[in-house]
């Protein structure tokens, strides 16, 4: 699948020389000319709003009176500190992010290893693995609501047919709602992780595998000594990204439970969305966004530290 890109890899070593080769055409006005069309919208519609958003967190901006906003210092953050509902939702966000990312990774790793084998019907699995990825999150949510539907859903019908009881209303049960949405999260994000890991697998040198096999290494040993070391960078990167994406996710849970029952699935994004666009508390919601980005930054910093350490170990 990736052979085209893999064979082109040696090109990388030649790039620095190539850059020299094209350079002696005077100062790089050309480069800036090429860069500006992208830089401008990025600055105006991405970096700008991000900074503006951080600034809003220190104001009492509300949807009704956005112009006459007053600077309130760290008041929003102080309020946030005592907002138990927010910290509940923060905790739910962490449970959700970890609860989705970890099983998703393990399942995706298993599938990627299978798809890397010469199995019949593997094309079917590859094709199917695309489906959740291509679907709008809203549709994924709707689809699983049909599956979880207490009466007409296939899940309860299967439970009834297996004689395991009557089934239940999974999405409205206080105890079952969060696990139920986590399962959907795992399903929805698995393909992307699988594809990334599969790509990583196909970059591991096959000769090493054969050599290890000839030396009598079993499947598990080969995985630990050959596959995993080669896969580790991709695995760490995709896991960090998945944690961040999941922590920031919105649409899936909005459609599945809209944060219910009783706030048991109210992810931080849902909380901040309601605060901003239902109650109009722009400043307060922006402060929530700041806390979220701070949490995520810690995660990024941690994974970078690990990566640097890993580089040293080598």
């Amino acid at each position, binding site marked *: 699948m990736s052979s085209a890109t893999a064979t082109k890899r040696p090109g990388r070593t030649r790039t620095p020389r190539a850059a020299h080769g094209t350079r002696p055409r005077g100062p790089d006005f050309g480069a800036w000319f090429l860069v500006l069309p*992208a830089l401008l919208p990025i600055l105006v519609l991405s970096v700008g709003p991000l900074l503006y*958003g951080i600034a809003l967190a220190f104001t009492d901006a509300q949807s009704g009176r956005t112009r006459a906003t007053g600077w309130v210092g760290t008041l929003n953050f102080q309020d946030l500190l005592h907002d138990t509902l927010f910290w509940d939702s923060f905790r739910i966000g962490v449970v959700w992010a970890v609860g989705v990312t970890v099983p998703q990774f393990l399942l995706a790793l298993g599938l990627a290893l299978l798809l890397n084998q010469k199995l019949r019907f593997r094309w079917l699995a590859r094709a199917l693995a695309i489906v959740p990825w291509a679907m709008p999150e809203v549709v994924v949510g709707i689809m699983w609501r049909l599956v979880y539907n207490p009466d007409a859903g296939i899940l309860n019908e299967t439970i009834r047919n297996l004689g395991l009881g009557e089934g239940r209303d999974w999405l409205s049960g206080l105890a079952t709602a969060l696990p139920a949405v986590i399962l959907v999260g795992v399903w929805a994000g698995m393909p992307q992780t699988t594809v990334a890991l599969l790509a990583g697998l196909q970059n591991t040198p096959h000769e090493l595998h054969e050599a290890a096999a000839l030396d009598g290494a079993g499947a598990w040993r080969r995985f630990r000594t050959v596959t995993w070391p080669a896969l580790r960078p991709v695995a760490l990167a995709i896991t960090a990204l998945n944690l961040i994406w999941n922590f920031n996710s919105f649409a899936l849970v909005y459609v599945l439970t809209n944060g219910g029952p009783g706030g048991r699935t109210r992810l931080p994004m849902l909380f901040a969305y309601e605060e901003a666009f239902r109650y109009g508390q722009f400043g307060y919601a922006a402060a929530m966004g700041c806390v979220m980005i701070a949490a995520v930054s810690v995660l990024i910093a941690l994974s970078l530290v690990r990566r640097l350490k890993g580089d040293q170990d080598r």
Partner: protein
Amino acid sequence: MSALRTSRPARFGQYVALLAYLVFLAFPFLWLISTAFKPAPELASLHPTWIPKDPTLANFRQAFDEQPLLRAAANSLVAAVAAAVIAVAVATPLAYVTARHRGRLASAATGWVVISQAFPFVLVIIPLFLILKNLHLINSVLGLVLVYVVWSLPFALWMLTGYVRAVPAELEEAAAVDGAGRLRTLVSVTAPLLLPGIIATALFAFVTAWNEFFFALVLLKTPEKQTLPVVLTHFLGAEGVADLGPLAAAAFLATLPSLVVFGFLQRRITGGMLAGAVKS
């Protein structure tokens, strides 16, 4: 594969595992399709079946009657096509520069790609909402397109940089030696080789915009402006009580375009992700 002979029980285990994955991946989607074609009485039955006994298209008709699906699809189409075309037009030159010149600009671009993945969108959407409101672009597809362009830029840049790196710089050098100017080289040597990558990136940006929900939910207020994912949620009703059949029918229809595009793209996207990932 020659030296790695898998034992028979192991092979068997692999097929069992593969089957389990197939079932897990497919069953919700099959259930969606099954529900979409079931007549109302079957949907009300307490013992639902996989295959509709009396398949019908009534749900599709009812879905179109209940919600402005066609207009929503048109809105989605306009937003997604415009976003994809603009994003790629803007990202390609930047990707070219980041791929060929390793300098401060290139690392800044890469850094921004990484950081943008971590944005909690709520922090960005509030200022964007205020900015677009001042520009009178709330409840307008144009405003949404602007947001989508910026939003899909990081990934477009990521993919395209990989594709540019895959074009051997020697070809450009050769053209330069032959006396072609920079622009000439770009247009007649690099661009044609880059075209498949550009198309793949554009299609990917299209699908992302077609599927997007959060920005559309916040920025589009009236039903006649809303995109397909937002209109789909109207089927859920206020108390979450839904008319299952039309809901399933509409949801199934909304998936088809991105499914078709993704089917085309499967190989290219993996290649693009790879190119971006391993070469940065």
